[in-house]
């Protein structure tokens, strides 16, 4: 399973990366994932229900995320909601992708393409 995260052929779509990024912060349900992705991207990425659940379906099949058997707090929430969380493979994958993006940002910084240099 670990091969998936380290395999160079494993590519994440932007939607998959953003969903994994949200779930890296803890288990969540579809609508909350959608809202958080919109917040992370200042509304630039809006996941429609089809993109959201199509991506969730493939990530479940690939073992990157898993569905929770029980809702975190049944008292407070609609029972029809399904909650998802990262698996170990999913966490490694999102970590690897974040590191890859960090490397790219470093290259861009080296070429003085970023206006606001990161404070060390």
């Amino acid at each position: 399973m670990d091969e998936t995260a380290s395999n160079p052929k494993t590519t994440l779509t932007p939607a998959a990366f953003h969903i994994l990024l949200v779930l890296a912060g803890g288990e969540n349900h579809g609508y909350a994932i959608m809202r958080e992705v919109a917040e992370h991207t200042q509304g630039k990425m809006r996941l429609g229900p089809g993109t959201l659940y199509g991506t969730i379906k493939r990530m479940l099949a690939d073992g990157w995320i898993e569905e929770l058997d029980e809702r975190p707090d049944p008292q407070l929430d609609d029972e029809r909601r399904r909650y998802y969380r990262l698996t170990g493979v999913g966490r490694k994958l999102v970590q690897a992708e974040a590191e890859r993006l960090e490397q790219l940002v470093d290259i861009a910084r080296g070429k003085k393409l970023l206006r606001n240099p990161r404070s060390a």
Partner: protein
Amino acid sequence: MNNSPLANSLSVSVRIYRVLLVAYPEKFREHYETQMVQVFRDSFREAYHCNGVPGAIDLWLHTFADLLVTALMERIMERSQYMFSPRVVLWGGVASVFSGMLWMMSASGGAAGVLALVLGLGGLAALYSRQAGQGGKLGLAGFALGIIGTVLVLAVLWWGSTIFSGPTYAIIHLRIERQPVLAGRAVLMGSLGLVTLGIGLALLGLASLRSKTLHRWRGLPLGLGLLNTIQGITIVLLAYEPLSQGRNFFDPWPPQGYALIATEFVLLGLGWIGLGTMLATEAEAQVAQPPPASA
């Protein structure tokens, strides 16, 4: 639910959205319909609450575009699951064997060539299916070109049969002699179809080589593709040239030309039989799966 504008438009919108979800495959709906409706309901409530009717319209436009694209994707993925199955490889392989036999018989003319082409589509599908999605864009392009080439040849054969067909070879010759330029065009288009089919097969062969999805005779599809291409070019050289100059290519028919064409038909036949045998016998063999990618 009360009768406020939000409640009314929410209720209508959710009902319409639920109907539109039939665009997705049934299995997908079984798993996600309730969640998708729930997400749409929440999104609609929020959009209406924040931006009123313009917000609801904006949400609808976005959701509709999302639905069109993702429903199409899910349908394609569902179909490709059926496409990459041992059953397709097995029966496509069998069709390919019969196609090869008919190719050999078609050297003497008749309807065998038409059947050989139609059954050859099964061989193409089997070869593409055997790649189990690992042939990538090269495999898909080869499969598409193979189908386009076959359909083009079949269309030309059908068109030619409506103009030049006859009960005897003498009548066919006479009809061709009367309209050599038209016959030349038919030959050119048919040859173009054969070359396209050949290129498609060659690309499928290259994709199979690259993905190592065939266990035996790995170079056979590529060789068969090149042979199809050579056959198309041979027909242009032997038949199109004289026809374009107003001469019937049957008269006088060069014996070495006949021998060449007949040899090519036999080789093509053997190639399709070999391809079909290989595919049918290793239909159940495992293809090494790469790690899942691109969710």
